[in-house]
């Protein structure tokens, strides 16, 4: 367990799923923290000093320790504060959670954003390719409330911040109903369950503001 006199700061960006999931993890553990908003794309001297390698959010500062990369930060939080563990204890289950988290942030993000904005093989093909990848997650969550079982875990925080509260909103802006209840009953149920968790609701970007900003991002991406 961590000592009582902690100083925890989080540099984040309100629209970033990567920084939102760190907030979720800190709230799940009941860790008080100071949030410092970066006004991206402008980067503060503090961000450049704390993360000179990547110059990205999120950055967690815990006393004198500086951490970046959201998956690395999440595992650090789980090991440092032992209450409400969110990574599985079993090594195999842990390996699976890490595998699927990487899959969400790499494959699903790569297929589910730019190829839909600039579809080289046509929009229908791009949608179908994204759905094929999402189907792997459907199989993982079917029969469960959350990927973590009865309560939210590591993969719920990674996939939750990336899919329903980021990509789904981008897809709505593009007029795409990617995760329909008919095709993805398990994931649709998971999204409803996530919306019932107070910590999740506290850590997602406000919808209207998010959609407005997302539309600007999509327009900018189309012309780049």
């Amino acid at each position, binding site marked *: 367990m961590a000592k009582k006199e902690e100083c925890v700061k989080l540099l984040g960006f309100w629209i970033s799923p990567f920084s939102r999931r760190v907030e979720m993890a800190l709230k799940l553990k009941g860790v008080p923290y100071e949030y410092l908003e970066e006004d991206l794309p402008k980067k503060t001297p503090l961000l450049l000093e704390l993360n000179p*390698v990547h110059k990205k959010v999120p950055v967690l500062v815990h006393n004198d320790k500086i*951490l970046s990369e959201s998956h*690395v*930060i999440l*595992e650090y939080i789980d*090991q440092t504060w032992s209450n409400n563990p969110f990574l599985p204890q079993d090594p*195999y289950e842990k390996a699976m959670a*890490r*595998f699927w988290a990487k*899959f969400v942030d790499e494959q699903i993000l790569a297929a589910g954003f730019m190829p839909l904005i600039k579809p080289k093989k046509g929009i229908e093909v791009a949608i179908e390719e994204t759905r094929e990848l999402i189907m792997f997650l459907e199989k993982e969550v079917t029969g469960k409330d959350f990927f973590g079982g009865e309560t939210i875990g590591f993969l719920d925080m990674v996939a939750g911040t990336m899919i329903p509260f980021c990509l789904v909103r981008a897809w709505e802006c593009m007029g795409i109903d990617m995760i329909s209840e008919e095709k993805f009953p398990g994931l649709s149920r998971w999204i409803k369950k996530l919306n019932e968790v107070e910590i999740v609701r506290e850590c997602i970007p406000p919808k209207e503001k998010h959609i407005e900003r997302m539309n600007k991002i999509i327009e900018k991406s189309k012309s780049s």
Partner: protein
Amino acid sequence: MTLRYSHNSDRLTWRGEAKTSPIRSRTKKRMELVSSFIRIRPRMADEVILLDFWPSPFGVRARIALREKGVEFEYREENLRDKSPLLLQMNPVHKKIPVLIHNGKPVCESMNVVQYIDEVWSDKKNPLLPSDPYQRAQARFWVDFIDTKVYEPADKIWSTKGEVQEKAKKEYIEALKILESELGNKPYFGGDNFGFIDIAMTGYYMWFEASEKCGNFSIEPECPTLMASAKRCLQRDSVVNSVPDPEKIVEFAFKIRKIYCV
């Protein structure tokens, strides 16, 4: 007929004389079918299979980790142009090696495999990751850096030419210099002990000669301390027994370069 455990086949088998009646024969056949599904294994005997490809900088990480821990495993070479049904079944998402199959369950993605090996065989010698959460986080951060900032240009050095290759060489050296700065005066990234980051880098160390020959450049003058650590890593028993002959990697690199650089 009685059910007996056979030490030779690790199975329950039926021993004894069956009487000749057809009903007893049918019963005997049913019992044999059932017993063929029952295997009694000694508790310590894990079945560990590694699906791999000999020159892969990712596959070698899994081999090294298993050997560091002294884990017995069956190595199975995959032909990546004709992937086995087992590989496609065990890694349907990426269809890539390495895949570690531990008692029938697959683990994919090389550094995920290395972490799994460290966690399962945690009672064995040589912890691959530090126990302190912050040091573990640092190790994971640098491995993530290696698999993005080193991997992308390294890949282009052997598969491209001209301006694209020149740009890749520059980015590769820049990334290696950042790593060298992190290494500092330590013998290994893990300090005095060979560990997680060193295992990740060894995949690239074994490809240094091939990268230099494909790109017509030299790494040592740019990164002398990193090169010294690389040589140290390449001398470890677990690494010597896992990495192919560098000349064979050079030969392989030029063979595939001919395909990519028309």
